[in-house]
Each structure stands twice: as C-alpha cells, then as structure tokens.
C-alpha cells in the first residue's frame, strides 16, 4: 500500500513539476493603462526576464493581476503562492539599487517564480509617502505616473526540474528505509 502511494505521489509530483508554464517575461501581459519603462536595467537587454511599468495601479491591484496571469499561463487549477519579502530583497532578485516599497513573490513551489516589486512614493489619496516623493515620467511623454511596478521571472529548465525531482524521490525513499532501521 505504502509503495503504491509513494509511486503515485512520485508521478503526480513529476507531472506537476514538468507541467508547461510561462517561458519568458514577454509571456506576461503589461499592466493595464501603463507605459513600459525604457530605463536602463528595466529591460531584458541589461537584466534577464525583467519588465517594468509606470501606471497608477497600486499593490492591491498589481499583485492579484499578475497572480491571475501567472495561473492562466501555468494552466494549473490553483493560484501561485504569494510570499511577502522585505523591500530591500529587491536588490537581490530584481537588480541592485531598485527602489521599493513592497516586494512580493508569486511562486509555484518546485517550478518557477515571478517577483513583483512595487515603488509607490504616494498613498492612494495622493499624499506623499516620504520626503522627496516625485511622480514618474517615461521618455519625453508629458504623462505623470504615481507608481512603478517591476516584474522579474525566474524560470527553470526541464532537465533541472527532473534532476531535482529525482533527488527528492530518492531522498524520501532513503529517509524512509533508514528511518525504519533507526526507529525500530
């Protein structure tokens, strides 16, 4: 019985890990009513799988928006897990010197992650969040924006996923065998 459960679990885990999902950042739609940043570091020429958008969309909209897109691209019946990180973590996962007021990760464990970094110098009522808050502009456009959202996608290759799956399954098997010998 245990053997059958283990085999079933191994197969389901493998299917989940290898299930097709988004391949690159371009697969993720831009934020609604936004303009794409052309700043250095906000484009995949400088940093891989990154995109940034200026808009008037706040965190309450941006993160669920990308969560839905990510789920739809992953063809899975459940949404990605939302992990909240300290804003300074943006220096590790987006790029150094990234301004941040929130930093979230949307993750399908053992598959891939989409990091959503937001920089909101103003509260939603328009008041300043900190000394020196300014609105954003993009290129020569006269439009002014309240927020900037930067997303970066970290995909993993099929071979990597397969090797990690093998490592997990072998570890569970070995743990079970050895655990039995040590406990009994």
């Amino acid at each position, binding site marked *: 019985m245990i053997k059958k459960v283990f085999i079933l679990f191994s197969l389901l885990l493998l299917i989940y890990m290898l299930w097709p999902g988004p391949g690159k950042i371009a697969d993720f739609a831009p934020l609604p009513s936004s303009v794409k940043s052309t700043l250095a570091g906000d484009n995949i020429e400088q940093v891989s799988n990154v995109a940034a958008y200026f808009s008037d969309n706040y965190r309450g909209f941006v993160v669920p928006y990308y969560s839905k897109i990510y789920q739809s691209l992953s063809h899975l019946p459940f949404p990605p*897990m939302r*992990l*909240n*990180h*300290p*804003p*300074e973590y*943006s*220096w590790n*996962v987006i790029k150094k010197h*990234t*301004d*941040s*007021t929130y930093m979230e*990760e949307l*993750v399908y*464990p*053992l598959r891939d*992650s989409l990091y959503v970094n937001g920089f909101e110098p103003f509260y939603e009522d328009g008041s300043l*969040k*900190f*000394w*020196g808050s300014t609105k954003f502009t993009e290129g020569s456009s006269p439009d002014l924006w309240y927020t900037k959202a930067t997303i970066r996608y*970290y995909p*993993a*290759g099929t071979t*990597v*996923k397969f*090797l*990690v799956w093998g*490592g*997990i399954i*072998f*570890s*569970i098997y*070995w*743990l079970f065998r*050895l*655990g039995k*010998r*040590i*406990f009994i």
Partner: protein
Amino acid sequence: MQKSVTLLGRILFLLVLFLFVFIPLYPKFPLFNVAGTFVAIRLEDLMIGLTVALWGIYMVLSNQFKTLIKDKLFLAILLFFFIGGVSVFSAIFLTHSVTPHIGFLHFFRRIEFLMLLPIAASVVKTKKQFIWILIFLGLTVLTVNGYALGQQYLDWPVISTTNSEFSKGLILGLTPGGRVNSTFAGHYDLAVFLAMAIVILAALFFAVKKIIKIPIVILAGLSFLVLMMTTARLSFAALLVGILSLLLLIKKRKYILLLVVFVAVVLTYPSQLRDRFISTITVNIFHQGQRYEGRTDDQKLRSQLNIPTLAIKTSSNSASTSTFATASGIATDITPGEPIDTTQLGVYRSFQIRLNIEWPRAITALKKNPFLGTGYSSLGIATDNDFLRSLGEVGFLGTAAFVLVLLEAAKRIISGLKNENTLIRFFSAGVLSMFIAFIVNGLFIDVFEASKVASLFWLILGLNLAALKLKE
C-alpha cells in the same frame, strides 16, 4: 602494510587530539577571504580537511570502510550530505536563491563539521587515548577561561567576527561594558562552549577520585564566572537544563535543591546577566518599560515605514534639529516604540530581530520549497534558531535526515548510561546532557553553524561513541 596502517591510526589520533585543542584556542584569523561573504576560510578548515583526507585513506587501508558504509549513523550522515547537495543544486538552478560559490562554501562547512563525528568515533581506540583527550580538553577550557580574564582585566587582544570589518582579523580591545569572547570571536559562542564544558565537568566530578574533584570544581567554577561575564542568557538557561538533565540521568536528585538555591543566589546578585534576564521578562513578555516617543513629526512618521531602500532626509544644520536627533543618554538610532533604557533596548532588539525578520525569513523559505528549502546560505548569516534555519535551508527532507543523525547518536550515547565503567557511564551522561543543553541553545542561536562550537560538539559526540567501544 599493517605497520603503515597502525602508524596512520596513531597520526590520526594525534591530529584529533590536536583539533580538540586547536579549534577552541586558535583565534578566528582569516586565511582566505571569500567574495560576497565575511565567512572566511581559516587554518582550522585546512587542518580538518587534512584530517578528513587521511581518515578516508586510513578507513580504506584498514578495511574498515566496508563496515562503516553499513553503519546506520554513517548512512544517516551520508543521507544528510546527499540532501544538502540536492538542496544546493535546487537553490542554484531551480529557486535561484543562492550565489553558487557561497552556497557550496556553506555546504562544505556542514560536511566539515559533521565529519568530525565518525572520525573521532573511529580513531580513539584505547582508554589511555580517551583520558589524554579529556586532560587536554580540561587544559583547553582552562586556557580559554584564562584568556577571557586577560581580555577583561589585562586588555588582551580581542579577535571578533561579529561584523564584516572585524572578521578581517582585526586586533581589537575590549570596549567599556563590552563582553569577553576569549578565543571564540563572539561572546555567544564562548558561552555555548562554556555551558558544554561545565556540564561535562559536572558529570566527571561524580566519576573521579576525590583528589581530581578539586581541580574539576575550580575549573567549572572559573568557567561559570566567565560565562557570567558573557551575560548570555540563553547559554545560562541551557546550562541549567543541562545540569538538571545530568542530575536526573545519574540519579543525584538531591543535588537539584542545591542547583535551585545556586540559581536563586546568582539571579539575586546584581550583574549584567541578571539585568538582562529581568529586561527579557519586563520588555519581551510583559511589554513594560518606558518607550521612546520620537522628537519630531518626521521621526514619528518615518518609524511607521519600512522602506530602507528609499533615499531619506539626513541633512541638518545642527545635531538638535536632525531627523535622528535624540536626547542625551538615548541611543542615536532609536525609533519610536523602542525602550529608552539601553539594556532593555538591546534585549528588545535581540528578540524583535528574531521574531520579525530572521524567523519569518526561514518560514518563507520553507514555504517556497518545502522538500529542500532554499539552500545553504540563502537565509544570510544567521537565523538564530537552528531548527528553523535547517527547515528554511534544506527543507523537511534535510531536517529529517539531520534529526536521524542526532537520534542515532543519542541512542548510542543512552546505551552508554549502562556501561560498566564508571568514567564512561558518567561521561556518557555528561555528553547526553551537553547534547540537550546544545539543543536548547539551538532554539535561539545557530549553534550547529557556529564553526568552533559545532566542530567541538561533533568531536565530543564522536569521542563518546569511541569510548563505548574502548579496550583497556
């Protein structure tokens, strides 16, 4: 061939004896720095590496490898290393949560520390060798204490690794109110070591002849005095748990009353340790103590934000109008809501950093990859709870393998409590109590990653396992 194997065995014993002395005594001078971290490679790493290599050759030449590879404890260790390796691979290529060379550095450090257990367990062959190690350990504890007193009263040099600048091997002095670290580069590490030493000394006290009891009492007393100087609350509590376990294990229950009286006296006598214990209760449990309210509106507002990546207003015409201006006698970096009293502030921050930053970070890592965690080094330099750190770094699988190692080692030591030899029986009780004290310390400090104390922990466990197989 047999002669060469015997000679190699003797060399290995001398190397292990050397490590028992060298690891605690040699200050943490870096030998090679590693980019991106202030964890450096030191001389002791090379010495351990050499010992591991020679031990590998010895095990093959002496035909013990076949037996070793069937041993449950060694298999559990190998499994722990295997899962650690898979976790690092996953961290580099799947979760992208570590810098490859730093992930490997921390992985190899775990291997380095834990390999000392099978090495010590297999190279100590006679009772004479066992006693020699105990004597040298005693002398080492004495030297560590002597050096700590020298730092406190004679301004002897302090080598510390508590920040990136100090860890370059700077020769420092103890600042007024600073806490001694002896040769351990951090006062918490020293306190953990002393708690380990006192528990074992207490066990040996009941096992040896009267004439040897006197130096043991003096050494344990001196170690306790230095432990008080470190003002490490948790190691003090771990020591009490360790001693209590010991008294129960060796069936000396009447001494428990003496222990209670002793603790009452220590906690009544005015000391920094007592103040920190009181602050722990008043500030962290009952949320009492006078709090800072902020001097300027900007300061009050800013304290509610958590946006350290933003540029902040730091310029000012005078110190009194600065955004960060505080009244004299108050910490310059204090924020509203924090206790004004400096002792209370230290205790408050010590707990809040764990509660709000380090522990949630480990839990987040576990959520991200429950099987394998996010890899060694992914949680930064400290989590201050070894079990959460293990869960975050190597997930449920790695932690389960580690627990198997601990369980199998503990099972064997427990069997030593019935050993016919009094010294080995009491030593086993001492090591088991030290084990418990170490685990208690691990609830608030990363003891299994603190190189000196972790190495010594595995060496002492290995010594105990060797003692259980001793010939006269």
